[in-house]
């Protein structure tokens, strides 16, 4: 299992959050959006300039800036578990 950060995830790939490296208000915000270890997350849409990126989290779309995504550690989900 490969460990990397969310900003490296490409379109339509699904990953699972393993750790949050942000702190304070930003960490709080991520948790309020349901981004906690164990959460499945997928790239939904990439803005023209590649930043921010819209992610699908728990049935909602959340836009994150690259620097925020870089503080979210993920593991890639095996291909067979990837949602359509």
């Amino acid at each position, binding site marked *: 299992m490969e460990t990397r950060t969310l900003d490296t995830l490409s379109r339509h790939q699904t990953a699972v959050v393993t750790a949050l490296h942000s702190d304070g208000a930003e960490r709080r915000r991520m948790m309020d959006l*349901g981004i906690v270890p164990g959460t499945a997350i997928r790239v939904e849409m990439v803005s023209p300039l590649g930043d921010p990126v819209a992610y699908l989290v728990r049935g909602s779309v959340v836009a994150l800036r690259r620097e925020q995504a870089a503080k979210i550690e993920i593991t890639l989900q095996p291909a067979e578990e990837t949602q359509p």
Partner: protein
Amino acid sequence: MTVHTTTSHACETCPLGTNAQLIRLGINVEGWNYVVALAGNPNTGKSTVFNALTGLRQHTGNWPGKTVTRAEGGFLYQDERFKLVDLPGTYSLLSSSLDEEVARDFILFGQPDVTVIVVDATRLERNLNLVLQILEITDRVVVCLNLVDEAERHGMTVDDRALARDLGVPVIPTVARRGEGIPELLAAIHEVASGAYKARPHRINNHNPALAQAIDTLAAQIEARFEGLPNARWVAMRLLDGDERILEAVRSGELGILARGAQPVGSALQQEAA
């Protein structure tokens, strides 16, 4: 402005419709018996529910500059006068953009008799974060499970009875835009306000003894310093969590304004910013 409503949307179980007992009072909130807060994530239909109950026309829809401060309106139901407060959308009681603070301050310190949490049936999981946070501080809650038409359109059915059982508070399915479920929502609000409904709110009990003691100690000090402040334990937990905004409100004495029932912290700031 007083609009006497006829039953525009019949309730299936009651031919006459309980809606017939609703009298929308517009901006008239004089002599209210109960205060009802409308909380929820952005875009769940709070203002739509507010308009349905008060007859007012709060802006609805997704555009910048909608409900940033609270809006108030009134309605009469079963001979009781209700003051309804439409709050800005918020994902959490813990985060702190200005409009979210307006909502947080009112839910925590405004002492509403009932808090109606409007949730999006298509995004239930994310919406439940706020529901669980509010259930930690009050059991006088009605969950308005809105946008069930959208959920159906996406092939989703939400088991509202199971949800009500798990949360321990009433859950009323609605399509607020079409007025569906509003009579049932009114009945639930009335039951919770009058104390007829006995809630058994879902609470998380995983506090360790050291933390519980720290909260007790701090909460007692907060209560002594800010007499009459509701939810001192919540404030204590925020302090232990290092919440800068709350720390500042305690230090500056700003928190005391809330205890005296004046404009909440957030809305005072909001007006400055506007």
